C-alpha cells in the first residue's frame, strides 16, 4: 500500500476492506449466528411437547438454568473435562516424538510417506475403526483366547467398558490431529537456528530445550485446541468402547433433545457447556502464561546452572540411540493407527451375522481345540492346521509368487521395465488369490444393494463435494481478506471462526435442524432440482469446513510477501484480474489443502448430518444408526469401499499436485492440512 500512496490508482480495490469476506459474513450469520441465537432463546422457554417445536416461548425465564445448575450436570462436566484433559496430554506425549521424528530425523521422501501414513487411516469412517477395536479387546475374542491358550492369561481379559477402553478410543481418534499441526510447526523451524545452537556448543538436549521446544509452541497449542475442543463435545467415540464409563456431557445434552424432548433444558445445557469449555480454555491459557512467567523468573538460576563449569561434552553413545528409539516409537504409533484398518478389512470377509464376531470359513483357532462350524453349518477349516488349510495356503502363496515375480520375468524377457506391471501385479494377484480361495463373501457383490450402504456412500460423496465447494469458495475469499485487508473487522471474523470451531457439534446440529425447519423453502422441499436433504447437508457440513479453509488460506498468505499483488496493481491490473492471475495461484496449494481436509472432515461428519438430514442420509449417518443394534459385516465392506474411493481420489490429487511441481513432502503436508 505504501508504494502506491502517492499515485492514485482508480482501478485499485475501492470497496470496504472486508469486501471479500462478505460471503462468509452472510453465510455465518444465516447458518451459525441466527440458529445459535435461537437456541439461546429456547433456553429461556418452557417445554411444550404438543407443539412441533416443543418449546413454549410465552413465558421466558431463567428456570432452565436453575435446573441445569445441578450436581448431575457438573459431575458429568467434570468427568468430561477430566477425560478430555488427560486424553489431550496422552495425545501430546504420544504424538510429539512422532512429529519430532518426522520433522527432523528422516529424509524428505520418508517424511512424505510417514505423514501420509498418519493421515491414511482417517480415510474411512472413524466409527467403524473404533468399533473394530472391539475385535481384539473382547473377552471372548481371539487375542484373549490365544493368550489363554499359551498360558499368559488365566481368565479372559475384560477391557471393554473400562476407563482404559475410553482412553484408547479417544487417543486413537485424536492423536493424528495432534501430530499434524505439531509437525507443521516443527517443520517451519529454520534449520539454521538449530545448527547455530549446535555450533555454539550446545548439547542436543539444550538445543532441544532452548530452541526446538519454544519454537514448537504454536504447533503444540494448535494441536491442543484441535484435540481438546472436539473431545469435549464428542460423546460417541468414548462410548463405543467404554460403554457407560465413556459418558460425556454431550450425551446429557443429546438425551434432553432426543430423549425427553426437553429442548429448553437441552439448550440451557448447551449454552452452559460452551461457556464452560471457553472458560477452561481461558484457564488453560492463564496457566501457560503463569508457567512462562515463573520460568522467566527462574531464568537466571537456570542459566547459572547451565553455564556451570563442566567437562567438555564428549561424544557419547547415548544420542545415537535417540534416532532408532524414535523410529521404533513412530512405528508403534503407526501400527496402532493401522490395526483397526487391517481388522476392518479382515472382518469385511466375515460370513457371520455380526461384524465384530468372526465366523468366517477359516477358523482362527490357534492350536488344539476344534474349529467348529459357521452359522450356516459349514465346518470351518483351522487356519493353523496345515493338513486342512495347507492347500489353501499353498494356492495363496503360488498366486502371490506369480504376481510378485511377473514384472521381473517381463524384464528378463523384454529387457525393459513395465511401470504398470510393477505397480499393480502383486495387488492384482492378492485380489485373485482371495477370490480363487473363496475367501471373498457375497457382501462385496451385493454391497450397493444393502439397505443404507450404497445410497449412503453416494450421499456421502455428493454431500462432501458440495460442502467442500462452498467451504473452499467462501473460506478462500475470507482467508485472502483476512491476510491482505486486515482491520477492525478481522477481530470480529476471527472471533466468529473460533466460535464455530469451539461450538460442540451437538449444539450446532440441533440449532441448524430447528433453524432449517423454520426457514422452510428450499430446506423443506426440493427446489431447482436440488433435494432439500442434500441442501441441508451441504449447508450443515460447510460450516466447520469453511472455518478450517479460511484459517489455512490465511496462514499461507500471511507467510507470503504481498509485493506481488501490489506490483500487479501498480502495473494497472484491475482487482479482478490481479486476483485471478496473482493471488489465486499463490493460494492454490492452500485451497487444495483446505479442500482436501474439509472433504475428509465432511465425509466423517456424523452428528450434524444425522440430525439435519432426512432419509437422504450419508454413510456415517447410516452406520451410526446401525450401531443402535447389531452391526452387520457389510458395514465393514462399505467402509473398505469408502477407504478405497477416498484413497483413489487423494492419489489423483497428489498426482495433479506433483505435476504442478510440489515436492513430495509438501504434497504430504498439503494433504495433511499443513
Amino acid at each position, binding site marked *: 500500500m505504501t508504494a502506491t500512496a502517492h499515485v492514485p490508482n482508480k482501478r485499485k480495490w475501492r470497496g470496504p476492506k472486508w469486501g471479500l469476506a462478505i460471503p462468509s459474513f452472510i453465510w455465518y450469520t444465516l447458518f451459525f449466528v441466527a440458529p445459535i441465537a435461537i437456541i439461546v432463546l429456547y433456553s429461556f422457554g418452557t417445554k411444550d411437547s404438543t407443539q412441533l417445536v416443543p418449546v413454549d416461548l410465552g413465558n421466558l425465564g431463567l428456570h432452565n438454568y436453575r435446573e441445569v445448575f445441578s450436581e448431575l450436570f457438573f459431575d458429568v462436566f467434570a468427568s468430561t473435562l477430566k477425560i478430555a484433559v488427560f486424553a489431550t496430554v496422552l495425545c501430546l506425549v504420544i504424538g510429539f516424538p512422532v512429529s519430532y521424528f518426522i520433522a527432523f530425523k528422516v529424509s524428505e521422501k520418508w517424511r512424505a510417506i510417514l505423514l501420509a501414513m498418519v493421515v491414511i487411516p482417517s480415510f474411512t469412517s472413524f466409527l467403524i475403526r473404533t468399533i473394530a477395536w472391539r475385535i481384539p479387546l473382547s473377552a471372548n475374542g481371539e487375542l484373549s483366547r490365544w493368550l489363554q491358550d499359551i498360558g499368559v492369561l488365566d481368565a479372559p481379559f475384560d477391557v471393554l467398558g473400562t476407563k482404559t477402553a475410553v482412553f484408547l478410543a479417544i487417543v486413537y481418534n485424536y492423536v493424528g490431529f495432534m501430530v499434524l499441526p505439531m509437525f507443521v510447526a516443527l517443520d517451519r523451524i529454520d534449520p539454521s537456528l538449530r545448527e547455530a545452537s549446535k555450533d555454539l556448543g550446545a548439547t542436543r538436549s539444550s538445543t532441544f530445550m532452548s530452541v526446538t521446544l519454544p519454537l514448537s509452541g504454536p504447533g503444540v497449542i494448535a494441536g491442543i485446541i484441535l484435540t481438546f475442543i472436539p473431545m469435549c463435545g464428542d460423546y460417541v467415540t468414548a462410548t463405543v468402547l467404554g460403554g457407560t464409563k465413556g459418558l460425556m456431557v454431550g450425551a446429557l445434552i443429546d438425551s434432553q433433545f432426543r430423549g425427553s424432548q426437553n429442548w429448553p433444558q437441552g439448550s440451557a445445557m448447551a449454552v452452559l457447556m460452551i461457556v464452560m469449555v471457553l472458560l477452561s480454555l481461558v484457564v488453560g491459557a492463564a496457566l501457560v502464561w503463569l508457567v512462562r512467567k515463573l520460568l522467566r523468573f527462574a531464568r537466571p538460576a537456570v542459566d547459572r546452572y547451565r553455564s556451570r563449569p563442566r567437562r567438555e561434552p564428549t561424544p557419547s553413545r547415548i544420542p545415537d540411540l535417540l534416532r532408532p528409539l524414535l523410529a521404533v516409537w513412530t512405528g508403534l504409533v503407526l501400527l496402532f493407527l493401522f490395526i483397526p484398518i487391517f481388522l476392518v478389512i479382515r472382518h469385511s470377509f466375515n460370513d457371520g451375522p455380526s461384524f465384530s464376531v468372526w465366523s468366517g470359513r477359516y477358523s482362527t483357532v490357534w492350536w488344539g481345540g476344534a474349529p467348529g462350524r459357521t452359522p450356516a453349518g459349514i465346518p470351518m477349516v483351522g487356519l493353523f492346521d496345515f493338513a486342512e488349510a495347507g492347500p489353501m495356503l499353498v494356492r495363496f502363496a503360488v498366486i502371490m509368487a506369480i504376481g510378485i515375480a511377473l514384472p521381473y520375468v517381463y524384464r528378463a524377457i523384454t529387457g525393459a521395465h513395465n511401470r504398470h506391471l510393477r505397480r499393480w501385479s502383486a495387488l492384482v494377484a492378492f485380489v485373485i488369490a482371495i477370490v480363487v480361495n473363496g475367501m471373498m463373501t457375497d457382501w462385496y457383490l451385493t454391497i450397493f444393494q444393502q439397505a443404507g450402504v450404497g445410497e449412503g456412500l453416494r450421499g456421502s460423496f455428493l454431500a462432501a463435494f458440495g460442502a467442500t465447494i462452498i467451504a473452499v469458495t467462501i473460506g478462500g475469499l475470507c482467508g485472502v481478506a483476512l491476510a491482505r485487508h486486515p482491520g477492525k473487522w478481522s477481530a470480529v471474523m476471527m472471533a466468529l471462526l473460533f466460535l464455530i470451531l469451539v461450538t460442540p457439534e451437538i449444539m450446532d446440529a440441533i440449532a441448524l435442524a430447528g433453524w432449517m425447519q423454520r426457514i422452510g423453502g428450499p430446506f423443506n422441499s426440493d427446489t431447482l432440482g436440488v433435494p432439500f436433504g442434500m441442501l441441508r447437508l451441504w449447508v450443515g457440513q460447510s460450516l466447520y469446513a469453511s472455518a478450517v479453509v479460511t484459517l489455512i488460506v490465511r496462514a499461507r498468505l500471511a507467510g507470503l510477501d504481498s509485493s506481488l499483488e501490489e506490483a500487479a496493481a501498480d502495473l494497472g491490473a484491475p482487482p479482478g484480474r490481479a486476483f485471478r492471475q496473482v493471488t489465486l495461484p499463490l493460494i492454490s496449494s492452500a485451497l487444495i489443502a483446505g479442500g482436501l481436509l474439509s472433504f475428509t472432515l465432511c465425509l466423517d461428519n456424523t452428528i450434524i448430518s444425522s440430525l439435519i438430514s432426512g432419509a437422504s442420509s450419508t454413510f456415517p449417518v447410516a452406520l451410526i444408526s446401525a450401531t443402535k443394534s447389531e452391526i452387520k*459385516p457389510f458395514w465393514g465392506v462399505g467402509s473398505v469401499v469408502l477407504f478405497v474411493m477416498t484413497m483413489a481420489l487423494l492419489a489423483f490429487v497428489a498426482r495433479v499436485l506433483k505435476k504442478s511441481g510440489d515436492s513430495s513432502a509438501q504434497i504430504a503436508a498439503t494433504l495433511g492440512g499443513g
Partner: protein
Amino acid sequence: MTKPNEPMRMLAPDSFRSVLSRRALFQVGGAAAGLAILAACGDDSSDSSGGSDTTAASGGSTGGGSDLLSQFSNVVNTASGSLAMFTWGDYNDPDIVGALAESTLGVTMKVDYYPSNEDLITKLSAANGNSGFDIVVPTGPYIPQMLEKGLLQKFDKSLLPNIVNVDPQYLGRDWDPGNEYSVCKDWGSTGWIYNSKVITTPITTWQEFMDATKGAASGRVSWLDSSPNVVGPYFWANGIDWNTEDTADLDACEKYLVDEIAPHIKGFDSYPSTAIAEGQYDLCMAWNGDARQAYARIADAGGTPEDWVWALGAPETELWMDNYCIPTGAPNVEGAHAWINWLLTPEISIKDLLYHGYHSGMKDIDKLMAELAPDAPRVDMIFFPEDLVATMRTGEVNSAQDRHTEILDKMKAAAAG
C-alpha cells in the same frame, strides 16, 4: 462361501424354508400369484410400473398348498420406486426389506434406525413432513402425541385388505381405536438373560434381578437403554403402578436406582446380544426377541448357549406394541401401503417373526407356526401363555417422562463413576 442374505440364518427351522420354496414353486405355476412375480421381474412391461395394481386375488389357494393358509387374506399389491423405512435396529428379516421386497413388490427398500421413540419424533418434527420416510414404527403410547403434532397420515384401508389377518385383540388399542393410523407390527415383553455358570442362584423376580445386579453379577450387568424400562424393575418389584406420576414414588425410585443399583451396571444396552457373545456381560435386561437372538450369537462366537438362562419379568412386566405407520409427507404412500399389506400376509409375517423373535399379532398364530415352522427353537421366548400375558402392563406417556429420562441420566452418571 455362503450367501450373506441367507434368509433363514437366525433361529429359523429348516422346515420353514422348504415350505416357503415349495409354495414359491406353486405360485409360479399358479395363475394369480404368479403374475405378481412376473410383473415384478420386469417381464411384463405394460403395467409393472403402474403403481398398485392388484395382481393377486385373495384366497391364496394356489394349487391347494394348505387349507390353513387359504383361510387368510393373501392380497399382494405391486408398487414401484423406492421405499424408506425408519425403524428400530435390526427389526426385519433382511430379505423382507431387501431382495424379496424388490422381486415381489417391485420396490427397493432403504432402512434407517432409531434408538428411541423420542428420537423418531424429534427427527420427524425437525423435518416437518419432509423426512423422506414412508414407513415408521412407533410404540403404541407415543402415537397420540405424534397425531397431535400431525406427524402421521391416515391409512387408505382399501389398500390394506390383509388387516383382517390380525388377531382382533391386537387391533383397536387405546392409542388408535379405529386403526386409522397404525397397525400392529409385533409386540413383546421384558425380562433378563444370565449366565448360570456365574450366577448360580436362579433369578425369578425383578427383586432377585436387582439383587443379582448388586451381587453376583456386579460390574457385569447391562440394563436397557430406555428410560421407562430402567424404572420398571423398581416399580414392578414393589407393586407400584409403573405409570405412576406420584413424586414420592419417583423420588424413592430414583434414590434406589441411582444410589444402589447404578454403580454396579456396566452398560446401558438395548441390544446386548453381540456384547454377550463377546463376553462382556453375565446378566442382561433384555426384550424377549433380542434375548432369543443372543443364543444364536453365543453359538456363533463359539460359546455355550446352554449356560444362559432366560426368564420373563415377574411378578409384573411390560407389554409393548410397535406399529406400522405412514408419516405425513411420505413420498411413496402407495408403496408403503403395499409393503405393510404384504407384511400382513401369514407367510411373510411368520418369516419376519422367525427373524426378530416377536409375536406378530397374526390370528391363529400357533396353527400358523405349527404349519410353517413346526421345529422353530425357543418358541417359549416368543409366545407366552395367557396367565403370563395377564401380568404384562402397557406403558403410558405422561408427566413422568421427564423424570424417567432424568433418572436414566443420573444412573448413567453414577455408573460412569
